[in-house]
């Protein structure tokens, strides 16, 4: 039976967003109440909340990809990034705030993967909000126990001689993986290289895209 949309108009006469027309849950009721109380008490404003949501929506793995591509093309920046990733990413306009960010580099012999066993700590300033699987019980439980099997499920099959290092994030310390620069990319610009850097390659559950599969545009 089609919805009767007349029942779903806001006081301003507009239809509610689709995710707004489900029955109100107890926890949504709590969120609305807390938000209104915080606004009334002057802790925040509706505009500040909206601005925070906009900023959250604007962050994406493209930020992290730009950092990685620069590390691939500028050795001095790579050194800075591995020494102090908070400062290096802040210098590119990606401020991580008071948290410590640590960049871990993949090499021919070492593959890094990040997890947060307790909750969902994630380098949000460089990658945006974490994917659902990162927050799942299965990923958080198994990555520290059987990382090679987990990586294989993501399609990352590593030779036995490659050491796998699992990094468990905390509330104040986040990790980002710097994947190894793919072969066959000599002479590529940072922008071209950034197109190879996927979200999962910076979590460690993926590898950069195959350069052969990316059509190069002359610059």
């Amino acid at each position, binding site marked *: 039976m089609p919805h009767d949309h007349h029942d779903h108009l806001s006081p301003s006469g507009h239809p509610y967003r689709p995710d707004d027309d489900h029955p109100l849950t107890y926890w949504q009721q*709590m969120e609305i*109440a807390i938000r209104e109380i915080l606004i009334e008490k002057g802790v925040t404003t509706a505009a500040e909340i909206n601005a*925070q949501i906009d900023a959250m929506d604007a962050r994406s793995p493209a930020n992290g990809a730009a950092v990685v591509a620069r590390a691939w093309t500028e050795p001095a920046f790579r050194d800075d990034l591995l020494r102090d990733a908070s400062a290096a990413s802040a210098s590119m306009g990606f401020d991580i705030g008071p948290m410590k960010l640590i960049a871990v580099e993949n090499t021919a012999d070492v593959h890094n993967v990040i997890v947060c066993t307790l909750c969902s700590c994630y380098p949000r300033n460089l990658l945006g909000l974490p994917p659902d699987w990162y927050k799942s019980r299965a990923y958080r439980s198994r990555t520290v126990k059987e990382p090679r099997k987990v990586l294989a499920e993501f399609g990352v099959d590593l030779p036995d001689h490659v050491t796998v290092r699992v990094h468990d994030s905390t509330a104040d310390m986040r990790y980002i993986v710097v994947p190894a620069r793919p072969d066959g990319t000599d002479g590529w610009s940072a922008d071209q290289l950034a197109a190879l850097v996927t979200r999962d390659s910076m979590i460690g559950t993926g590898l950069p895209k195959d350069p052969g599969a990316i059509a190069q545009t002359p610059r």
Partner: protein
Amino acid sequence: MGGDAAGPIPTEQHDFSLWEKRVDALMVIASSKGHFTVDGLRRVLEDMSPQSFETMTYYERWIASVNQNLIESGVYTTAELAARMSDVAARGATYGEASHE
């Protein structure tokens, strides 16, 4: 939780709904203004029973923890929250209706 046996990693992804983004924003804003810390958020999450992780969604756990922290830091009282939640529920049966005073 780390090291416990578990099944295959779920691959479904959902778009965050407005109410979930608001919970996230409230957490970031309230903690940036010193009303509690990320550690406080996690303390309450870690105190929850394993059952909570089966029955509540991610941001449901977060709003429960944000609430606990804000009450502990004295930003508002349980009585204030209860009164406001009643007002909210009286406005309508959907999130959209209940969001408008």
